[in-house]
């Protein structure tokens, strides 16, 4: 055996450190949760109002039939790619440094997917008839139309949500078992159920590792397909500047870009709040920073390819949209977006010294996410605002109700995440231990 005794000796400390967030709660946490709950309540109120009075409470109007809700939908799906990408792709490539990051990112995936689903409901004109989308025959023996990209979307997101829930749950089983043995009260019962009789036998370990090995490549494939299909929603449409082949891969990369940015924020905040400096080290920020640099370049390349094609092709329908972005009604958000997601990350992340600076990386992550949100809006709104019949050209800006719902939903995501942190160890304990075991001694 090549075990280093230190890992084994450290185990009680690791257990203590990583279960601490579950066991100790400060008043600031309650304050934080309270504030978020108020925002969520405001959002819920706004949505109720919108359902009662009509979807017209948004600023949507023809020909701009989609707006901030769909943009948010795309955005949150993008955020959900953080977990799958980091834990999936990095697991596949055996990147050891992933370990402290995976759980936190996967948790983001699940929360983001829940939120994503909400945006579909916000968006529906008759949300009380949402069940028409469920595949079962209606009274007239009619099923949903699977030729619609929206049904592809529904299928893909259902698959993705199911798969990523499974994917976060499986590695959690040993940690649930750990928590089951150390936490008392009502949570113990829940952990007992969730740990499904885990006792750390080699048979269980083998099954678990095998399952993770099988599911990991599958979920990476699902992840790529999901955001491709979200891209297809736009690419399949005849709308000028949507009808483009690059949308599927572009959406996937964009999703990873914003997802990594979001992980950067989460990593920084959790490390700070729960003093996880021993586990989340500068090294992790640096690695993520490098990845972010890669996605920045990749996304910029794709965006350039897309816009160049439009510019050179000079098809009037498409060029009208491009003009509105470059120097028309949407120029200000467009150039702001370009700075946020391409220029600033590029100019900062290329410096190795910068990548050693967690605060800076967190800020870049934040900027990228603000930029990516605007980018989602700019993908959706300007093309819709410039239909081929120029008589119908128009503009759009989200209404107050939309803002309240968007903020409320953001608060909901943060709230769910904050609550989850109290229930789920944000760093996978056994994987961390395993990582330490494999790690060369400093």
């Amino acid at each position, binding site marked *: *055996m090549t*075990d280093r*005794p230190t890992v*084994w*000796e450290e*185990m*009680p400390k690791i*257990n203590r450190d990583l279960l601490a967030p579950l066991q100790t709660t400060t008043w600031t946490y309650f304050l934080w949760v309270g504030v978020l709950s108020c925002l969520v309540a405001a959002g819920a109120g706004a949505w109720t109002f919108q359902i009662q009075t009509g979807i017209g409470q948004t600023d949507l109007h023809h020909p701009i039939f989609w707006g901030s809700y769909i943009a948010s939908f795309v955005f949150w799906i993008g955020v959900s790619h953080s977990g799958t990408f980091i834990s999936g792709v990095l697991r596949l490539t055996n990147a050891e440094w992933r370990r402290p990051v995976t759980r936190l990112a996967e948790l983001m995936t699940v929360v983001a997917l829940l939120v994503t689903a909400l945006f579909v409901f916000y968006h529906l004109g008759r949300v009380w008839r949402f069940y028409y989308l469920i*595949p079962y*025959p209606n009274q*007239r*023996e*009619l*099923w949903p*139309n*699977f*030729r619609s990209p929206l049904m*592809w979307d529904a*299928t*893909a997101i*259902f*698959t993705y949500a*199911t*798969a990523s829930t*499974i*994917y976060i*749950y*499986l590695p959690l089983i*040993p940690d649930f*078992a750990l928590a*089951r*043995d*150390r936490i008392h009260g009502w949570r113990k019962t829940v952990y007992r159920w969730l*740990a*499904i*009789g*885990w*006792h*750390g*036998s*080699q*048979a*269980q*370990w*083998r*099954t*678990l*590792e*095998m*399952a993770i090995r*099988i*599911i990991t490549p*599958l*979920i990476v*494939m*699902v992840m790529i*397909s999901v955001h491709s*299909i979200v891209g297809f929603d736009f690419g399949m449409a005849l709308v000028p500047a949507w009808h483009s082949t690059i949308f599927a891969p572009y959406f996937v990369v964009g999703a990873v870009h914003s997802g990594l940015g979001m992980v950067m924020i989460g990593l920084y905040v959790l490390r700070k709040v729960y003093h996880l400096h021993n586990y989340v080290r500068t090294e992790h920020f640096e690695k993520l920073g490098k990845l972010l640099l890669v996605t920045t370049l990749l996304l910029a390349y794709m965006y350039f390819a897309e816009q160049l094609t439009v510019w050179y092709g000079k098809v009037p329908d498409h060029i009208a949209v491009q003009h509105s972005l470059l120097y028309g009604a949407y120029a200000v958000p467009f150039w702001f977006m370009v700075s946020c997601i391409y220029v600033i990350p590029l100019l900062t992340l290329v410096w190795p010294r910068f990548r050693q600076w967690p605060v800076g990386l967190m800020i870049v992550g934040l900027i990228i996410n603000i930029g990516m949100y605007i980018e989602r809006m700019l993908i959706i709104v300007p093309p819709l605002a410039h239909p081929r019949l120029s008589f119908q050209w128009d503009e759009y800006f989200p209404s107050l109700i939309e803002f309240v719902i968007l903020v409320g939903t953001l608060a909901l995501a943060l709230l769910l995440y904050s609550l989850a942190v109290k229930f789920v160890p944000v760093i996978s304990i056994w994987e961390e*231990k*395993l990582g330490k075991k494999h790690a060369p001694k400093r």
Partner: protein
Amino acid sequence: MPQNADTAERHVVLGFFDPTTSLPPVLDQIRNQGIPDIFMEILSPLPLETALLNKPVRIPLYRLTIIGGIVGIGVGIFFAAGTALLFPLVTGGKPIVSIPVVGIISYETMMLMAIAVTFVATAINIAFVQQSGLRNDPRIDEGSVGLSIQVGNDTAKAHSISRLLQQAGASEVEIRTIASDS
């Protein structure tokens, strides 16, 4: 230890070892006591790299995954092609059965079923397969390796195994008695 004469009892011997202890010699000694591998189990806070026990695998998990995937493809074909044929409405000049659509939907349902089946199988495996009847012991996660041996209702054997483990360097040894049908 409470004894109940009405039900059959099982004894489980559980020994805790320091992780540095070399376990194969201990296992051999136990095997010499006439206890097959399937009654032994090693508990650890981490997956151990080498399989020390020789236990048969009933169904490989990946096979279930593939079966799930195939079922999923069937579901996808039913959704994308079957439901369209049941009520063949023309939309936008697209064929009633559109091959790319069938492909996309089948891909997603294939993934869904494959992952779901894998998960269910895993969960069943973890929850029910080869239960030693023991609850997890918190001490394992604190950094020791556990070795549990089921000895049935043979109390004498339990004590001899217990001694054997102590001699082999176990830091602690327990004998637990479990009502087998409880």
